[in-house]
């Protein structure tokens, strides 16, 4: 790749994942027809990030046969390619050659973000109306009288109608929805306040009164909509980033018919009894039984075992495992909806625990706030009625109380803090699915980690490089380069460049190893029993292991261990400092778990757990009153991710795990977990501060309103001042810690949105 190394934080290091390029059948399946024989394919290309990238990709793809055009979207890091004909042009391979790994993602067909465009349109209309009405109000406040004032009020009333219908509609619907389910949310007092203020102002206007609150009702909507839009943009951004990650489940499979013909069918159409061809590098789409072939399966995403399992015909395989070395023919024993994957989804849905009952801070506050406010306004009305008997005056003052107490500051305070926090996490490569996740994360006291793929990378690392003869290592590396087996990759990766030894006729024996001939000798790299067929059975060779042999005599042996994720130890220490106790739950063997636990200093761990065992353990912790954070990546962790109070998954996690988790971190370092906890706690502190500010503001403003001293001018000033105060307080979150290295493009867009909020 030609350009700008810094800032590619979404440029995931997914090299560790053995995944083949999407096959052309798979691309065809994921493309959509644009009419005629024109089709469009959307690809996620995480490494695009400058003009040079855009030009390189668009030019190169445009030159391919049958490609009509390609368009890069830099904001979402996607490329859409329009192409003709039956055969898929080789655009994924072309992108790969340019240095941009691309992958398919689930296209949301015709699903443009309707909510966002509705929100932006509402903000635009409310902004237009608020600006113009404020302009007219300023002239009223500066002394316009008589017919002029009436004219201004009438014009304001007219301008406010589209704003109420368009922008207010969002709040009216939400408030009605809450009320009809017998609940209370922040939108109820807003809807009541805005509509009463408008009705009263209209009455005043008709009767030539001198106080109208058109400006208050519309600018209130405008402020609140900004908060709501920012909140939506934040979630949308995280969703797009997570959707753009490479898909780890099979989309379809090659079906071998009885008459020998082959069809590529989507996973949903595969039925039990069908024969499927699984090439090396593909994932098993449904549960099945092997009919032909031998291979190694990587089960780390499914069971948490870090060492690949050797399988031969007659054995059963689970959906979601990755076929590494040899082609297999399997007979499907279950349809996709009855497979292991679907079973995990069912377990997850059954386990849906803490988060279903969680109510957001804003909702909890407003459940108290709204009745108090409405009661105060009502009592004010009664009080003035009794004191003066003038119902018009009493009504005016009661509505002034409602306007002054409208939770403008509250409605902005919470989303603004969460947007700023989410942006800080985004810069560090952590995606937040929604604001409530941050509130939940701030309360945790126990963190439960999965082992394989979470604390460790799930990829073996060669540990005895120093004791291996470099010449032997070079030969081993050259042989290993021909295989996808994780051990081979580790060997190939650990050898420096020593010149290419001359190898002839390299062949891979699935389940055993690699064989090559060089200079008349036969070299084998693989299982001890297979490669070292002449070796004496002494003490050392008793325990399997991987060796390199020359003509059957062992010349080097290799020891592997599962590499720990970067900064795993530091991350756990930081969690301990933050008063979070750490536990490890794994599907792997007790020995493997014990080793990792010892290195990382984890006291409590449970090995050899089934997926439901993890859920049971988390539910037991929850019953004991703990708030549990689950960090995991495998399919077997997914139910636990759903059961926990809040959950985090790495970007390398299985698809449903990523969707189930509240946070997804994109980088390799595990420091993302303590960072997310830290930022969430600080955000929680700021939210409480902001709510306190809003309460203090009300404590000062409400008595003034009850005494009847509030004019529209004072209402406008008080509302804007309190909003600016909470926004300013929220922005302090950015100054709490040194921020991550500056990123250029996406951040700019975000700060624009923020400055918009400050400006208003």
């Amino acid at each position, binding site marked *: 790749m030609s350009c700008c190394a810094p800032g590619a934080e979404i440029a995931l290091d997914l090299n560790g994942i053995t995944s083949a390029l999407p096959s052309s059948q798979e691309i065809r399946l994921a493309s959509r027809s644009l009419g005629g024989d024109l089709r469009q394919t959307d690809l996620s290309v995480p490494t695009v990030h*400058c*003009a040079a990238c*855009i*030009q390189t990709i668009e030019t190169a793809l445009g030159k391919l046969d049958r490609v009509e055009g390609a368009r*890069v*979207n*830099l*904001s*979402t890091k996607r490329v859409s390619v329009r192409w003709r004909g039956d055969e898929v042009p080789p655009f994924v391979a072309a992108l790969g050659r340019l240095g941009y790994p691309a992958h398919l993602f689930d296209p949301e067909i015709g699903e443009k973000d309707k909510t966002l*465009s509705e929100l*932006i*349109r509402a903000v*635009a*209309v409310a902004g*237009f109306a608020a*600006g*113009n009405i404020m*302009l007219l109000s300023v002239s009223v406040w500066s002394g316009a009288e008589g*017919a*002029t004032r009436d*004219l201004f009020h009438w*014009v304001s009333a007219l*301008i406010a109608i589209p704003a109420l219908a368009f922008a207010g509609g969002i709040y009216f619907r939400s408030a009605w929805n809450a009320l009809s389910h017998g609940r209370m949310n922040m939108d109820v007092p807003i809807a009541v306040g805005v509509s009463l203020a408008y009705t009263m102002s209209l009455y005043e206007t008709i009767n030539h009164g001198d106080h109208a609150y058109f400006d208050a009702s519309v600018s209130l909507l405008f402020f609140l909509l900004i908060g709501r839009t920012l909140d939506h943009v934040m979630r949308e951004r995280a969703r797009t980033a997570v959707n753009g990650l490479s898909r780890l489940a099979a989309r379809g499979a090659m079906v071998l018919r009885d008459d020998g013909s082959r069809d590529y069918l989507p996973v949903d159409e595969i039925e039990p009894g069908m024969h499927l061809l699984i090439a090396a590098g593909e994932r098993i789409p449904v549960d099945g039984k092997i009919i032909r072939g031998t291979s190694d399966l990587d089960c780390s995403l499914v069971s948490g075992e870090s060492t690949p399992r050797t399988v031969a015909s007659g054995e059963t395989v689970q959906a979601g495992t990755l076929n590494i070395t040899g082609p297999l023919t399997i007979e499907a024993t279950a349809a996709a909806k009855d497979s292991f994957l679907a079973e995990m989804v069912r377990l997850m849905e059954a386990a849906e625990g803490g988060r279903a009952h969680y109510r957001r801070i804003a909702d909890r506050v407003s459940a108290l706030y709204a009745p108090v406010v409405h009661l105060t306004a009502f009592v004010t009305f009664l009080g003035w009625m009794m004191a003066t008997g003038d119902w018009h005056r009493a009504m005016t003052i009661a509505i002034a109380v409602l306007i002054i107490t409208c939770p403008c500051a509250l409605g902005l305070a919470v989303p603004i803090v969460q947007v700023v926090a989410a942006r800080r996490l985004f810069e560090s490569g952590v995606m937040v699915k929604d604001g409530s996740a941050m509130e939940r994360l701030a309360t945790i006291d126990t963190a439960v980690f999965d082992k394989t793929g979470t604390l460790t990378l799930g990829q073996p690392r060669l540990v005895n490089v120093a004791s291996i003869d470099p010449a032997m290592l070079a030969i081993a590396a050259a042989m290993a380069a021909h295989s996808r087996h994780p051990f081979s990759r580790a060997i190939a990766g650990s050898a420096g460049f020593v010149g290419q030894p001359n190898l002839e006729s390299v062949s891979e024996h699935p389940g055993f190893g690699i064989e090559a001939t060089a200079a008349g000798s036969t070299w084998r790299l693989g299982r001890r029993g297979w490669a070292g067929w002449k070796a004496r059975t002494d003490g050392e060779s008793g325990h399997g292991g991987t060796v390199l042999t020359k003509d059957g005599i062992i010349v080097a042996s290799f020891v592997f261990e599962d590499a720990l994720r970067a900064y795993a130890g530091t991350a756990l220490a930081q969690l301990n400092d933050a008063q979070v106790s750490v536990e490890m739950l794994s599907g792997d063997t007790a020995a493997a778990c014990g080793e990792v636990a010892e290195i990382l200093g984890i006291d409590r761990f449970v090995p050899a757990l089934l997926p439901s065992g993890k859920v049971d353990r988390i539910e037991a912790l929850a019953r004991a009153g703990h708030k549990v954070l689950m960090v995991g990546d495998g399919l077997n962790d997914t139910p636990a991710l759903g059961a926990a109070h809040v959950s985090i998954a790495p970007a390398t996690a299985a698809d449903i795990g990523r969707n189930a988790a509240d946070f997804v971190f994109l980088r390799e370092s595990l420091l993302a977990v303590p960072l997310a906890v830290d930022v969430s706690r600080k955000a929680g502190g700021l939210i409480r501060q902001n709510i306190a500010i809003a309460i203090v503001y009300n404590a000062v403003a409400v008595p003034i309103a009850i005494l009847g001293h509030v004019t529209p001018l004072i209402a406008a000033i008080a509302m804007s001042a309190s909003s600016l105060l909470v926004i300013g307080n929220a922005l302090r979150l950015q100054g709490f810690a040194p921020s991550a290295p500056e990123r250029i*493009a*996406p951040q*700019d*867009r975000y700060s624009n949105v923020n400055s918009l909020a400050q400006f208003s």
Partner: protein
Amino acid sequence: MTTLVYLIPVALFLGALGLFGFLWALRSGQYEDLDGAAERILIDRDDRPS
């Protein structure tokens, strides 16, 4: 008062013009790729009329 009769409509008309300009830009997809738009001005197209 007489000046207001045409000044207010003029002000509202200009404001509305801006609003419709924004809504049009939104609908025609000009906000779909803000980062890309910022970078694309750096690309020299060689598609001169021939």
